[in-house]
């Protein structure tokens, strides 16, 4: 049985841990709100860009001479996996679940005899992957020093991906990130970004929108498409990074909430033990005094 002093130390240490987890939970909640707002603010741009692209590609469908970002290189030998995780831990299974999904994909691709290259966005992903797949990692982007993810960060990553694609260093690119559903639910997702997968063109809806009129294009359709596809890639990366940021904070919030609750339970139990053993000691002392007095 632990002494009273040990128990007291134990209780105070758990209590200070609880304070930390409680603070982290509240910080995560505040950051989550900001991350959600940022994700919300980015939505109109992404959805409009998607709509215009869908409209443009509808006219190009079936043509083999379309931009390579859209039709691909015609091979699927070299796969590039862009794995977006957090830069920090202590957010429950957030990083692990993204990495697990990516690892399954890597193992399957390797088993099929494909070449795999990896770009890590976020430090935790690299840490988890470097032991097994260190040789495949091409580059790591760290976001730790950035408070609020901006479009510029997505541009950096996109520039790297595009230059690799132009140099013919991969055929298919897939993006791994965590889609934000709610504070308690984030789904790790794999999204193929090269060749571009676009939502089915809602040409019916668009035609109605235009009253049957046809767009004028300035410059030509092909040129616009060639300019929009890289931009679309950047926007997809940006959206993924924002979703990831929101998911991370959500995951951290619920993880820290659990930790705070566990610490509370632990303190309760320790307090009961502490009070019992204090009572036991008092009783023991009383018995000693009484039996001492009786002996005289």
């Amino acid at each position, binding site marked *: 049985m632990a002494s009273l002093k040990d128990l007291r130390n134990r209780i105070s240490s758990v209590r200070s841990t609880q304070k930390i987890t409680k603070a982290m939970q509240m910080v995560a909640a505040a950051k989550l709100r900001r991350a959600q707002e940022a994700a919300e603010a*980015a939505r109109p741009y992404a959805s409009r860009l998607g709509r215009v692209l869908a409209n443009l590609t509808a006219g190009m469908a079936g043509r083999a001479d379309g931009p390579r970002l859209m039709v691909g290189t015609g091979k699927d030998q070299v796969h590039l996996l862009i794995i977006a995780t957090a830069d920090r831990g202590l957010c429950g299974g957030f990083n692990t679940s993204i990495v697990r999904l990516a690892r399954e994909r890597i193992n399957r691709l390797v088993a099929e005899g494909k070449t795999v290259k990896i770009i890590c966005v976020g430090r935790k992903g690299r840490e988890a992957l470097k032991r097994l797949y260190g040789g495949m990692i091409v580059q790591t982007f760290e976001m730790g020093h950035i408070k609020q993810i901006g*479009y510029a960060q997505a541009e950096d990553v996109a520039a790297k991906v595009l230059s690799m694609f132009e140099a013919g260093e991969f055929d298919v690119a897939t993006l791994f990130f965590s889609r934000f559903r709610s504070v308690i639910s984030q789904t790790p997702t794999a999204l193929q970004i090269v060749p571009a997968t676009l939502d089915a063109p809602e040409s019916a809806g668009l035609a109605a929108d235009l009253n049957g009129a046809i767009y004028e294009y300035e410059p030509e359709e092909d040129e616009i498409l060639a300019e929009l596809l890289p931009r679309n890639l950047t926007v997809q990366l940006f959206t993924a990074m924002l979703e990831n940021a929101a998911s991370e904070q959500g995951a951290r919030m619920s993880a820290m909430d659990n930790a705070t609750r566990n610490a509370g339970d632990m303190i309760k139990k320790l307090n009961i033990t502490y009070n019992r053993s204090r009572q036991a000691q008092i009783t023991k002392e009383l018995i000693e005094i009484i039996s001492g007095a009786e002996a005289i």
Partner: protein
Amino acid sequence: MAQKLKFDLVSPERLLLSEEVDMVVLPGHEGDLGVMADHAPLITTLRAGWLIVNPKSGYDGERIFVRGGFAEVTPAGLTVLAEQALRPGEIDGPLLDAEIRNAEEDVKDAKSDETRLRAQYKLDQLREVRSAL
């Protein structure tokens, strides 16, 4: 003016403007163009330059700097998707000068023609903003 044009200006990070306007002048890829209500449906890419909202006489409307992006005109209105959109007050002078110096160095240090072209393009854009301030 009888009819108003529904105008949305969106950057990847936020929705900047969403209002009814009389006219917008866009820095189109093939030259500036004015858009008013009932314009024919159009999709155009934008070059870096000033977008002018509600010009009265000449260029004295509200000016917004846009960099890269495209504009979509539908019967419902005008949507500008700009990669970067800044009001004159949001452009940071000293920071911009530093960026220009950086860009100049990039042009000098560029190893391949392609990177030099890209750096030069960026530098030109920055200079254009600077001169317009």
